[in-house]
C-alpha cells in the first residue's frame, strides 16, 4: 500500500470511553442482588453513622428500670441495667463497622502486597511467603484472635491488627492466584524488556488487572471481619461497657432474652443484614466479572 491507499485507519466513532473497572461495576449494578446488597449496606451504614444523632439518650444514660418493655420513653424497652435499647443500638454500630472496615483494609493491603510479590518473584521468595501464609491459615482465626487478646488485653488496635492478619493470607492467596496468569502476559514482558522498574510493574501492570477478583474478595473478607469482630466483642474482647457495641449488646442482654428480646434481636438483625448486604455486593461483582449472568450483559 503506497500513500494513495494509506488513509488514516478510521476508528469506530461511537465509543463509550470508560475505565474497564467502571464498566465492571456498571454491569454488576444491573443485577438485582447488587442493588439489594448496596441498599442493605447503605441502610446499616446510615444507622451506624447518623443514627446517634437521632438517639433519644446517650449510650450509657439510664432510661428506666432493667428489662422494661417498649414504651413511649424507651421505644425498644430497656436492657439489663436500665439503658435505652434503641439508643444503645443506634450508638453501637460505629465501632463494629469501623473496626471491621479497618481490619479488612489492613488485611487487603498486606495480603495484596504479599500476593503480588509472591506471584511476580516466583522461586524461593514465593515459597517462603506462601508457606508463611499457610501457617497462619492453619489456625482458626478466632483462636488466633483469642490468644492475642488474652495476652495483650482487649485493645481496639489489637482487634484490628489480629483480624487484619487473619484476613491477609486469604487475600494473598487470591492475589497470587490471579496475578500468576497476568505475570505471563505479553504486556508484562514488554515492560520487562523495556526495563520498567519492578515496583512499577507490580503497581502499574499487574495490580490493575487483578482488581476484579480483589473486589469480590474484599467484600467477602469484610463479611467475615464483621462476623469475627462481632464475635470477639460478644466475648468481651472488643469495646468495654458501658460503651455500646452490637456484639457486646447481644452478650449483655442474652440473659433477659425471654423477658425483653429487643436488646438481642436488634443487634443480631443488624449484623445479619450487614453481612448479607456485603456478600450480595461481592456476589454481584463476581457474577459480572465472570460474565456468567446474562442479566449483567456482556463486555
Amino acid at each position, binding site marked *: *500500500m*503506497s500513500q494513495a*491507499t*494509506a*488513509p*488514516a*485507519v*478510521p*476508528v*469506530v466513532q*461511537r*465509543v*463509550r*470511553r*470508560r*475505565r*474497564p*473497572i467502571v464498566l465492571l461495576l456498571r454491569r454488576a449494578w444491573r443485577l438485582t442482588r447488587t442493588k439489594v446488597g448496596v441498599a442493605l449496606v447503605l441502610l446499616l451504614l446510615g444507622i451506624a453513622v447518623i443514627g446517634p444523632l437521632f438517639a433519644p439518650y446517650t449510650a450509657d444514660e439510664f432510661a428506666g428500670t432493667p428489662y422494661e418493655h417498649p414504651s413511649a420513653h424507651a421505644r425498644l424497652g430497656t436492657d439489663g441495667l436500665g439503658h435505652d435499647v434503641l439508643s444503645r443500638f443506634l450508638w453501637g454500630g460505629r465501632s463494629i463497622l469501623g473496626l471491621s472496615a479497618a481490619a479488612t483494609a489492613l488485611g487487603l493491603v498486606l495480603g495484596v502486597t504479599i500476593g503480588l510479590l509472591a506471584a511476580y518473584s516466583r522461586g524461593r521468595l514465593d515459597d517462603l511467603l506462601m508457606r508463611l501464609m499457610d501457617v497462619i491459615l492453619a489456625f482458626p482465626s478466632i483462636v488466633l484472635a483469642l490468644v492475642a487478646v488474652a495476652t495483650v488485653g482487649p485493645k481496639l488496635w489489637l482487634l484490628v491488627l489480629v483480624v487484619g492478619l487473619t484476613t491477609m493470607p486469604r487475600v494473598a492467596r487470591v492475589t497470587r492466584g490471579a496475578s500468576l496468569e497476568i505475570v505471563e*502476559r*505479553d*504486556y508484562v*514482558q*514488554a*515492560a*520487562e*524488556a*523495556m*526495563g*520498567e522498574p519492578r515496583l512499577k510493574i507490580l503497581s*502499574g*501492570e499487574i495490580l*490493575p*488487572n487483578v*482488581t476484579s477478583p480483589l473486589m469480590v474478595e474484599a467484600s467477602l473478607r469484610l463479611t467475615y471481619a464483621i462476623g469475627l469482630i462481632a464475635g470477639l466483642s460478644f466475648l468481651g474482647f472488643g469495646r468495654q461497657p458501658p460503651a455500646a457495641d452490637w456484639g457486646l449488646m447481644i452478650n449483655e442482654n442474652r440473659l433477659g432474652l425471654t423477658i425483653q428480646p429487643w436488646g438481642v434481636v436488634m443487634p443480631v438483625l443488624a449484623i445479619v443484614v450487614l453481612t448479607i448486604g456485603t456478600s450480595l455486593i461481592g456476589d454481584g461483582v463476581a457474577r459480572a466479572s465472570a460474565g456468567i449472568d*446474562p442479566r449483567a*450483559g*456482556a*463486555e
Partner: protein
Amino acid sequence: MTAPVLEVEGLRVEVESTGVDIVDEVSFEIAAGEVLGLVGESGSGKSTVALALLGHTRRGARIAGGEVRVDGRDILHRRPPELRALRGGTVSYIPQDPASALNPALRIRTQLEEILAAHRYGGRDRLQEMLAEVLLPHDDAFLRRYPHQLSGGQQQRVAIAMAFACRPRVIVLDEPTTGLDVTTQAHVLATVRHLCDTHGVAALYVSHDLAVVAALATRVAVMYAGRIVETGRERVLFRASAHPYTRRLVEAIPEVSGRHALEGIAGTAPRPGQRPDGCFFAPRCSFAVDACVEAFPPVERVGDRHDVRCFRHTEVLATAARARRPAPELPAADAESVLIEVRGVNAAHGDRQVLFDVDLTVKPRQCVALVGESGSGKTTLARCIAGLHRNFDGELTLRGSPLPAGARARNRETRRELQYVFQSPYNSLNPRKTIGQIVGQPLRLFYDLGYRDAHDRIASTLERVRLSPSVMPRYPHELSGGERQRVAIARALAAEPTMLVCDEITSALDVSVQAAIIDLIAELQREMQLGLLFVTHNLALIRTIAEEVAVMSGGRIVESGKVDDVLDAPQDAYTRALLADTPSMEAALAAAEA
C-alpha cells in the same frame, strides 16, 4: 446436480436480549460430496452459521428465523432429545481447537466408544476402522492413550474420526486447522477431502484462510458482517469475483509464489447493532454509488451457480481483476556493517534444549525473516535477542559489543535500541491503561520529556502507524485487533529503535488486516531505516517484506540466504517440504483449471 443434502434458507440468528441480528438472510445449499467453504473475517458470523447447522447458538443468542434442512427434513424446530440424536449422528461438528474438544481425563478408546454408544452405531471393529480412516495407528496401545499424549495433528484426527464415526450426512468444520502447522494442516485437509469424497458427505468448511479454502472447497461462500455477499465456484469466485469485498480479500492474501504488494482494506467491518442502512460494505467500497447506501442489495445470479449481493456487480465484473502490484524494492542493507549478530547460541527451557548452535546476522536497514513451524525455536531465539529469555549461552552482539542476557542486565540505551513486537495484540496491551499511557511508556523510560512534548511525540508516533491521535484516551478493548497491533507497533517505535523484532505479529489477525500491517511494517522499515527480524510461520509473507530468510527446524537453522534463492530453489529437504505444504491459492487454482 444431485439434490442437495443440506439446505439453509433465510437463517437469522440474533442477540437474545436486544433482537439485534448477528447473521441474517443466510441461504445456501450443499450437495453430497461437496465441500462449501465459508470464508469471512473475524466477526463476520461464520461460526454462528456453523453452529446453527446443529441447531445450536452461543450463550445469549438465538435462532430467530429461517430453515435448515437435511435431506429435506427440517432440523431447527425439534425437541431437545431429537436434536441430541441428530448431532453427531446426522450432522457432526469438528471444532477449531481439538485440545479443548477432547476430554483430557478419558482415554481415546473411551471417547471414541462413547460416540458410537450414544448413537448405537457399529461394534468393536468399527473403532479400528475409524482410526484407520484418519490414518492413525489403530492398535490397543494407541487407544489406551490420553489426549495429552497425542500431538495437535493427532488430536485433530481423533476429532475428525469422531465426527465421521456415525457416517453423518452433513459435517461442519469450524477452522479445524487454525492451530496446526502447515505440514499437519496439509495432511488433515487431505484426510477431510478424502472422507467427504468416499462417503458422500456434505461438508461446510469454515475458515478465514482463503488459500486453504481454495485448496479444499468446490464452492465458496463469502460472508461479510453477517450476510453472505457472494457464492460461487472457487475458481470463478477467486478469479472473477463480482463483489468488491471478495476482490479486496483476494488481493490481501499473501502468495508464496510471487513478490506481491499486499493491500489491506481500510476501515473495519461494522459490528452487530452498528450496521449501516444499505450495503454493509458501502463505506469501505470504491465502487459504491448512492443506491448502495439506501438499500441492502438483493441476491442476484451472475453466472452458473454464482450469486452475488451487489448493485454494482456488472461494473465490478467489467473491471478486470487488478494485476497484483509487485512489492516495492527493499532498501539496500549495508554490506559491511553488522547490527545484530548471533553466534553459536544454545538455549534451553528448563532442562530441555530448544536451540542448537544457532547463527544469525541482521545488518542495519535489513529485514531478515525467521521461518519455522511451532516448536522450532524461532520465538525463543527472538526472545533471547530481546532479553526476555536468559537461559542461553553463545555470543550475542549489537554492533560488535556483547549483549548481556536479560533486558535488565543491559543498559538503557541498548534497551531503547532493541524493541520487540509481540504476537497477539490482545495480550500485549495492558487492558487497564489508555493507548496514550501505553505508547508513552517507552518515552517515560528512555526520554526525559515534559508533558507537552511527550503528548506530541505520542500523537506523532500514532500518526506514523496510521492511527488518529484521538485514540489516546481510549482503552485497548475499544479498538479492533488490527488497531491494537498498530498501537503495539507504535509503542515499539516510540523508543526510536534501530532494531525491531516482530514475533508472528500478524498471526492473530485477519488477512485484510494482516496485509495492512505488513505493508505498514515494510514502509516503516524503509522510513526509519530499521533492522528487522521478522519471525513468522507463514512462508507466503516473507517475499513481500524480507531480503534474507533463515529457516528453522527443531532448534537449528537448516537453510538461510536471499529470500528469492531459498524460495525458488530450496536446498534443504525440510524447506522443500514446508514450501510444498504451504497452501497457495495460485497453485490450487492452477491445479483446478488444469
